[in-house]
C-alpha cells in the first residue's frame, strides 16, 4: 500500500474540504447506492410484495449513518427514488427532528429531489414509528425504518426456530404470550410493535408504531415497505391487503384513547397526541404527534370536525 503524498500546503484537500466533499459526492452513482445494490434491493422488494408480511433477507449496505439510525429505510428510499420524486421524512410523526432532517439533507444531496412536509404532496415518505394522520393514496409509498423485524423474537430467541415457526405458520407461542398477558394484567399490555397477521398467513412486526396506526395498514390504498438495515430484512404490505392485529374474541386489541384531550396547538381531538410537560410550571399539555398535520390544520384554522384523519 502506498500512502497519499502530503501536499505542500500540509492539507490533503487542495481547494478546501467542502469542495472535495462535493466532488466526492458527484463520484457516487445517482442516489448514493451503486446500481447493482439498487437492483438487488428492488428484486427483494418485489419478492416481499409477492409474499405479504414475509421477511426477505437482503445484503444491507454500509451507509454513511450508523446501523440502527434508519439505514434500512434509507436504503429502500435510495433504491426507489428518482429525480421526479418528492420526499418526506418523519421521525415519530415529526418532520423537524434531527434524524429526519439529516436523512433529508443526505438524500437531497445524493439524489437532488424535492422535499416536502406535506403528506399529500409526497410520493415517497420515509418514517420512523408513525403513519401520517392523513390518508395516503395509491401513488404513494410509505417506507418504515424497522429496529427488530422479527415479531416472534419476544417469545423465541433462536432465529432458526423463528424461521421454522414462520414456515409452519406456528404462532401459538405468540398467542400464548398474549393469553398470559391477559391473565396477569387483565388486558393485552403490548403497546407499540403490536403483532399483526398479514393476509392470514404471516405474523408481522409493524415496527414500533402505536396501536393507533394499525387500522391504517388494513386494506390501504398505498404500498407499505419495511426495512431493517441492521437485521438485513425487507418486508411489505401491498395495497388492499388484510392486516389484522392479533386479538381474542373476548379481548379485542384496542387503539390508544385520549379521553377529553385535544391538541393544544390545532385543537384536533382525533389525532394521536403526545404529552408535553412544561418545565417551568410543570403543566401538561397535549399536541399532535404528526407535526405536518397539526401545522396544516393551524394554517387552515379549521374546526376539528373537518378532520381528514377519520374519526376513531
Amino acid at each position, binding site marked *: 500500500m502506498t500512502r497519499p503524498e502530503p501536499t505542500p500546503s500540509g492539507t490533503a484537500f487542495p481547494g478546501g474540504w467542502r469542495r472535495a466533499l462535493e466532488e466526492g459526492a458527484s463520484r457516487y452513482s445517482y442516489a448514493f447506492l451503486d446500481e447493482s445494490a439498487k437492483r438487488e434491493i428492488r428484486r427483494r422488494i418485489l419478492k416481499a410484495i409477492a409474499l405479504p408480511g414475509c421477511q426477505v433477507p437482503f445484503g444491507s449496505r454500509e451507509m454513511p449513518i450508523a446501523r440502527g439510525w434508519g439505514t434500512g429505510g434509507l436504503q429502500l428510499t435510495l433504491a426507489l427514488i428518482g429525480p421526479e420524486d418528492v420526499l418526506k421524512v418523519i421521525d415519530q410523526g415529526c418532520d423537524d427532528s434531527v434524524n429526519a432532517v439529516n436523512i433529508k439533507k443526505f438524500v437531497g444531496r445524493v439524489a437532488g429531489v424535492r422535499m416536502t412536509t406535506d403528506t399529500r404532496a409526497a410520493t415517497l415518505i420515509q418514517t420512523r414509528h408513525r403513519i401520517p394522520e392523513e390518508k395516503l393514496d395509491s401513488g404513494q409509498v410509505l417506507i418504515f425504518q424497522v429496529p427488530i423485524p422479527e415479531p416472534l423474537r419476544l417469545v423465541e430467541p433462536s432465529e432458526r426456530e423463528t424461521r421454522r415457526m414462520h414456515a409452519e405458520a406456528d404462532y401459538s407461542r405468540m*398467542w400464548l404470550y398474549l393469553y*398470559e398477558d391477559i*391473565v396477569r394484567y387483565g388486558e393485552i399490555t403490548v403497546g407499540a410493535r403490536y403483532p399483526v397477521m398479514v393476509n392470514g398467513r404471516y405474523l408481522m412486526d409493524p415496527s414500533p408504531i402505536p396501536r393507533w396506526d394499525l387500522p391504517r395498514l388494513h386494506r390501504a390504498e398505498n404500498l407499505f415497505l419495511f426495512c431493517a438495515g441492521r437485521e438485513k430484512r425487507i418486508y411489505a404490505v401491498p395495497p388492499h391487503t388484510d392486516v389484522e392485529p392479533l386479538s381474542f374474541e373476548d379481548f379485542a386489541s384496542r387503539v390508544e384513547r385520549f379521553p377529553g384531550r385535544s391538541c393544544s396547538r390545532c385543537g384536533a381531538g382525533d389525532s394521536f397526541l403526545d404529552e408535553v410537560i412544561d418545565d417551568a410550571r410543570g403543566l401538561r399539555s397535549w399536541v399532535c404527534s404528526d407535526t405536518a398535520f397539526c401545522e396544516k390544520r393551524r394554517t387552515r384554522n379549521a374546526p376539528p370536525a373537518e378532520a381528514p384523519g377519520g374519526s376513531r
Partner: protein
Amino acid sequence: MTPLLAVRGLTKRFGAGCGECLDRTGALRETNRCPRCGAILACREVSFDLYPGEVLGIVGESGSGKSTVVRLLHFDLEPTAGEYRLAVADAAAGGGGRNLFALSPFQRRRIRNEHMGIVYQNPRLGLRLKVSAGGNIAERLLMAGWRHVGRIRERASELLRQTEVPLARMDEPPRNFSGGMQQRVQIAKALSTRPAVLLLDEVTTGLDVSVQAKVLDLLRSLQRELGIATLVVSHDLGVIRLLTSRTIVMRHGEIIEQGLSDQILEDPQHPYTQLLVNSVL
C-alpha cells in the same frame, strides 16, 4: 377390529450406518451398537398395533429403545425407516392409510396437535415451567385455533379439576409446583384437545411412592372415563400391571416378547422377560 394406530418396521439409527448394522445388532447379538461402524440402533424393525380404547405397555430396561419409540410416534425424532398410520388422522386428512412419516412437518404438527397427547418423564420437556399452568393448557388449545379467553379458561379449569390440581393455582407457573403436581398439569395439557392417542413416557419415574400411587389412580380413572387409546412406556412392572392390558417387551431395540400383560407377568417365555419379572423387588 381395525387398529387405531399401526407401526411397521420402525427403525431409528443414530450414526452413519454401514449396511451391516441390522445384522450385527439386536437382542440375539446382545447389543444395539454396531461393532463395525459404531452406529446405535435405538430401535429396529419395531411393529405393533394399538386398538381403540386399549392400553398397551412397553417394558424394558433403560437403553432398550422404549422412549425412542414414543418420541418417534410423537414426531420428536425423525425415523430412519418405518411406517406409521393413524386411523383418525387418515379420516381427517381425507385419504386412507397414508404413512404419517411421509407427511410434511406442517401436516405432522397438525396431526400431533389434534390427535396425540404426550406426558414425558421430565415435566421440563412437556411444560413451559415459567408460563402459568392454565397457560400451558391454553397453548395446546390456541394451537388448535381456540380464540376465546373465557372458553379457554373454562376448559383449562375443567381439566385441572379432573387432574386434581387446585384451581387456585391455575395462574401460577408450574416451576412453583411439586413433581407430582407438575406431572398432573402435564396430563391435563395432554388431554386438553381430547386426543385419540395418549403417550405416557415413564410418567411415574422420579416421583415418590405415594405420589406415584396418586398419579396412577388418576390415570386409571381417566382411562375409565375417557377410554383413550394409551401407550404406556415404563421399566416399572408394577405400572404395567396396574394400567395395561397388553404388553410388549423390548431389549436392545427389538421386540422380544408380546402378549396379554397378565400372561407376560405370570408366565414369561423369553429368558430376559423371566429375568425382568423375577428381579422385581
